[in-house]
Each structure stands twice: as C-alpha cells, then as structure tokens.
C-alpha cells in the first residue's frame, strides 16, 4: 500500500511539469517552430531548384548536411551506448540521467537521417535503395544499421517508459481525457505485478546489451562510409574507433548541456545534482583525452609518413583552415581537458562550459574531416569557377541545419510534456532497493 501512495505522490510532484506551460516555454516553442519553418522554406527551394542552391559542387559533393548527419547519428549511437551501459551495470546515479539519454538517442536518430536525405539528388527514387539493393555498398549497410538501430532504440525506450505510463494511468484522474486514454494504451495493462516486473526487467536488460552492440556496429559502419574510400583524409583504419570516441564526446557533452538546461528550467535541483555533473565531467575528461589522443595519432601519422597526398591535405588544413584547425583540434580538446582535469575547476557551470566547447570543437573537427579532404583530391583541381574550388555553405544549408537543431530541442520539450524527465519507476525501484539493503543508501 505504501508503494501505491508513493506513486501517487510522485505523479503529483511531476504533473506540473507535464501540464503547465509557462510564458517562457511558449515563447521558446514559437521561436523553435519559426526556425523549423524557415528550414522548411529552404527545403522547398532546394527541392524545386535542385542542389544548385547549395554550396556543394563536383569536388565537394558533401557539405554540412553530411556533417550534421554524422553529428546527430553519432549523438544517437553514443546515447544508446551510454544508456545501455547505465542500465546493464545498474549504475547507482543513473536514474536521473537515463531518460535524458534515451530521449536524446531516439530524437537524434530521427533527425540525423533527414540530413543524409538532403544530400540525395533524387529523393523521388529513394525506394530504389530497397528495390535494387547492393550489399557491397557501405550506404546499404548504413541504411540497414540505422533502421535496425532506430527500431531497437524505440523498443528499448518504450520498455523503459512502460512503468511510468502505468503510474500515470493510475494516477491522472484530473488529466484531460486524451491523456488518460493515451497513457492507458501505452501502458499495455502493466500493473507492476512481480512477474510483469520481472519480465520487463529481463527484456530491458537484454535490449540494453543489444543496443550497445548495435551502437558499436552502427558507429563503425558510419565511419566506413568515409574510411573505405581512397580519399587521403579518410582512408584510415582508426576511423571506426575514432568515430566511437568522437560520438561519445559529443554524446556526453550534449547530455551535460541537457542536464544543465533541464535542471535550470524545471527546478529539478533535487534530482539532477552536482554529483551528476561531477561524474559526467570525469567521464567527459576521459573521453576528451581519448579523443585528443585519436586526433593526434590520426594527423601525426599523416604528417610523419608525409605521402604526397597527405602533405597536400595538411597544407590545406594549415593554411586555408588554420584557425578552424586550431579551434577544432587544440581549443576543442585542451580547454575541456584543463577545466575538467583540476578538481577545483569543476563546478556545474564550468563543466557545462567545457561541454559546449567540446561540442563546437567536435563539429568543426567533423567539418575538417569532410570538406578539406574533398577540396584536395588526388588529381589537382584545375578549374576557374571559384565555387568548384572551395566550398562555402549557402543560407539554404544553414537554415536546414538550424532547423534540425530546433526540431531536436522542440521534440525534446514535447516529450517532456508527455512523460516526466525523471523516471518515476526508477525512483520507486530505488526506494524499494534501499528498504531491502539500507546500508547501500546513497543518492539517486
């Protein structure tokens, strides 16, 4: 009876988050919708006029679309990876962040592939990928990986939502009819009986392992799109692990930023506490060191063996892209490392700042992997048209990129209106555990 009462309490605690809409949040939503609409206009223009409206041309055939694609998809994979690990190893403070991670995972996996679609010249023939598949093509692998991963993440996310849906169903008598109905359907008659709970735990656990494995495969496949070609800047055997580390780097950073914003706007200081930031900060430190290490060995080996094509690429990077390179690979790594390395520097704000720098640096790092490589092919570019020699993204591309980010944030806000961002079932589980073994009591 105690549990039922506690459940009611929790629902009452979180329901304001689900139901109220403050003025700020309304303004925010309007702004995000506006950005998305601009993106839609840009999309229509691109569809009508063709890819000529982008900055991409015969040498740089992939621009910031593919960078956004890698960024979001890697974000998703790292989300899956982290969430799988949190679940599988029953990390003590996981409850407060696990739902944030799961939402990031699914949202970025929905938004990421939209950017690869923007790279495709004939969207009307997209179904040819299934009609005439060739399994030698890394693109085919990527499509299979993304679809499998998307479904897997959906199932996994849903599994973790079920107990909360059940609690919401049982305790939202005052909520509007559609909400009640929705919760009832989504809760699939879960009554938290011991057998139901056990079954759910069992499949959540297997799915968490599956999601980790899938993330590793999907990461590698994504990296292989680049590293299996002969291009000097891409043809590298460390690309797959490099992408995993880079993905985790962005993933942990986005989680930190999301934690910071959610904590601030929803006043969840009680659940998302300093200890979470410190823990995430230490993880980000480890990953940033690894990321720096991979970046260094990648460029170092190119510079040391100085094959002619590699030298040409490094020349481009250190001349035309000098400041971008410094920002991406020095500031983007060293600043987070310095902030996170010294314990006294670690505060909630500084950790968040380090995460922001890390994300910006990483995005630039991706830009430098994609664009300069395509600008320095084996055969020298001998052309008189400036747009064919050097890539500059047009407003269409930027508008669509920002629309992607806006969509990500908007969907995040909307999902938070559907279920509490802190899993209530997790709190119940935790308290149940505490009762059984009181000596283990620590934080959430």
């Amino acid at each position, binding site marked *: 009876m105690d549990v039922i009462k506690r459940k009611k309490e929790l629902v009452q605690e979180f329901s304001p988050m689900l139901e109220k809409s403050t003025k700020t949040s309304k303004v925010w939503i309007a702004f995000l919708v506006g950005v998305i609409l601009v993106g839609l206009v840009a999309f229509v223009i691109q569809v009508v*006029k*063709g*890819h*000529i*409206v982008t900055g*991409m*041309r*015969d*040498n740089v*055939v*992939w621009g910031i679309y593919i960078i956004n694609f890698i960024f979001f998809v890697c974000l998703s994979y790292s989300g899956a990876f982290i969430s799988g690990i949190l679940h599988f190893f029953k990390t003590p403070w996981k409850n407060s962040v696990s739902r944030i991670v799961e939402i990031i995972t699914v949202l970025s996996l929905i938004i990421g592939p939209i950017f690869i679609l923007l*790279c*495709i*010249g*004939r969207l009307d*023939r*997209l179904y*040819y*990928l299934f*009609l*005439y*598949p*060739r399994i*030698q*093509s*890394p*693109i*085919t692998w990527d*499509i299979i990986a993304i679809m499998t991963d998307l479904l897997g993440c959906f199932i996994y996310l849903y599994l973790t939502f079920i107990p909360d849906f059940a609690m919401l169903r049982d305790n939202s008598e005052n909520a509007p009819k559609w909400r009640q109905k929705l919760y009832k359907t989504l809760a699939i008659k879960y009554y938290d009986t011991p057998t139901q709970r056990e079954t759910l735990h069992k499949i959540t656990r297997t799915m968490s392992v599956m999601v980790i494995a899938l993330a590793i495969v999907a990461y590698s496949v994504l990296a292989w*799109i680049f590293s*299996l*070609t*002969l*291009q000097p800047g891409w043809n590298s055997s460390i690309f797959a692990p490099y992408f995993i580390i880079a993905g985790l780097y962005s993933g942990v950073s986005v989680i930190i930023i999301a934690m910071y914003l959610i904590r601030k706007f929803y006043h969840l200081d009680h659940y998302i506490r300093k200890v979470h930031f410190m823990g995430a900060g230490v993880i980000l430190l480890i990953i940033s060191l690894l990321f720096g290490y991979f970046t260094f060995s990648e460029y170092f080996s190119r510079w040391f063996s100085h094959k002619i094509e590699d030298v040409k690429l490094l020349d481009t990077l250190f001349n035309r892209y000098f400041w971008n390179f410094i920002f991406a690979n020095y500031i983007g790594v060293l600043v987070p490392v310095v902030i996170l390395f010294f314990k006294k520097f670690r505060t909630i704000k500084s950790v968040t700042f380090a995460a922001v720098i890390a994300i910006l640096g990483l995005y630039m790092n991706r830009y430098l992997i994609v664009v300069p490589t*395509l600008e320095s*092919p*084996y*055969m*020298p*570019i*001998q*052309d*008189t*048209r400036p747009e*064919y020699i050097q890539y500059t993204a047009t407003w269409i591309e930027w508008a669509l990129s920002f629309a992607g980010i806006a969509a990500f944030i908007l969907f995040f806000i909307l999902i938070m209106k559907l279920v509490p961002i802190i899993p209530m079932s997790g709190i119940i589980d935790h308290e149940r555990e505490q009762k059984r073994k009181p000596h283990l009591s620590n934080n959430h």
Partner: protein
Amino acid sequence: MANKKTENGSENRRNFLRLGLMSSVSAVAGASLISNLATGEEKKASGEKVRVLTPDGKMVEVDAESINNYPEAVITPEESRKGIPDKKFVMVIDLSKCKNARKCVEGCQKAHKLDDHQEFMKVQLMQNNEEGSPYWLPKPCFHCDEPPCVTVCPTGATFKRDDGIVLIDNERCIGCKFCITSCPYSARTFNWGHKEKFDDKSQPYSPETQVPAAEGTVMKCDFCPDMLRQGKLPYCASSCPMGVIYFGDKNEDIVTNGTETVSFSQLIKDRGGYRHLEHLGTKPNVYYLPAVNRQFPVERGFDVDEEILDRYKDVPIVKEFKEQGKL
C-alpha cells in the same frame, strides 16, 4: 500502324547490332582499312547538325539523326548492362604528342551535349615536382578493373560490364554522390540543377550515350559504346588532330588512333606505358605513354582561352612564365 513501326524498329536494331558486333566482316573491316589511309575525313557525329547540299542546289542543315541509318538502335538501360561480347576495351594516351589542342574535350562535349565547363575528358597540366618537366594529361574516366565507384553504389546505378566499360544508368541513379567521393581520379560530375536540354526527349535515353541527361544524377566519360558498336573510335580519339588517343580491344591486342593501328602490348612495351596512380590498386584501363621525345614544347598548350589558361595558375611552370612575362 504504330505497332508496325516498332516492329520495323526492332528489325533495324537487330541489323544494327549485327553490324556493330561483327565489325570484322569483310565490308566494314575492308572499308575501315581504306578510311585509315584516306586521312582528314572528318567523322560526323550523330546527335549534331550536318550541313548538306541537296541535288536541287539548296544548302540545308539537318539533324544527323534524321538521316541516321539506325535511329532505332538505342541500347536500353537493360541492354547496356551486358556489354559488347568478347571485348575488353583499353585506351592508350600518348603524352608526347599532346599539345592541349582541346579537340578531344570539344568533340566529347558536343557528342554528349555537355555545357562549357562540364567535361568528361579533362586536360590537366601536370608537374610532378618543381624540377619536373610539365606535361599535358588528357584524363578521361579510367574504367578501372577494380572500380571503387561501382563498389560503393547502393543501387547498382553504376556498373561494370563484361567489356570493361563502367557506365551509369541515370534512370537508376538516386544521386547520393558516394561514387564521386570514392573516385580517386575526379572523373565524375553531377547535374546540380535543372537544364532545359534535359527535357529534350527527341533522342531516347541510353546509358551508352548519356543523352538526355537528368537532374540530380551523376555522369562521366563512357568510352562511347554507341560508336564502338558501329566499329568506330570514341569521339575524343577521332577528334584529336595529333593522334594522341589510341583505342581498341585488349583481347585482340590492337589499338588505333584512326591513322595508325598497332599492337597494344607492343606499344606499352616499347614506349614504357604506365597507368596513372597505379599504387591505388584500381587497375585502370587507360594507359599513358610517358611524355618523352615531345613533338611540341609544353607552352604550345598555353594557346587557349584566357578562362581555360586560368585553370593552370597554380602549376609552377605557369607561375614562372607569368613572372617572366611570357604569358
């Protein structure tokens, strides 16, 4: 009525194919021997305008197709995947004879209805190092035996045929551009926007001619299989005034530039033939004869439009020439 017409069409096509494939039958082979000796005869390309005089004394310009003997002889995308039986095409480019006359580029552009800067055949100015001797490098698609572009295509829109030719079916292409990034020779181009000429459906589409092109799809040099089926040289080879480009069948070991017909293996052996960027392992089917004992000094190639010349501004020799005020 319409039915009858198509019947006739397929009949014509069969005849055409037979003619194309059995080109060594006496009539064609004999004729080509003679045309070898009768030099200077410009070959008219199908798909362009031809000016003729009618017996009643009128000068008329006619679409070459309208007096083409085989207008129905279009190889459909499905047929074009097979290739010409028992052939293995190979090109040899003699760098010692190239003077950047750009006739190969122009001939190719005309035949494939390409725009000004869209080139299947590019002539690049190469200088391997500061001291190295600069030379002109006509660069078509290399039709590799291990084509990375074909490997990465997710829909099989680009394919390698049994005769060694790598083609693109623009009705299958989804425009993902993966093939462009995987080609180490920058041989491929993309149709970024819509152009009026894409709507001209008077000539049925064939991957062997790549006409009409389509927006959002990839194109590249195709070795002109439509000409090969008629026992003729590709447009670049036949329009080169210097006889730089040799073309032929590797199986029969014969290549020709239109005036001279020689053994392929002997040519490669005698002249030190090589393939560009051999170390990449793509196994190109285009060979180069090194630029030794040149027929022209490299600066003969600077006699081109300012706009074309501007392409080569980063090559050391061009910088040098500009400093000396020779350009």
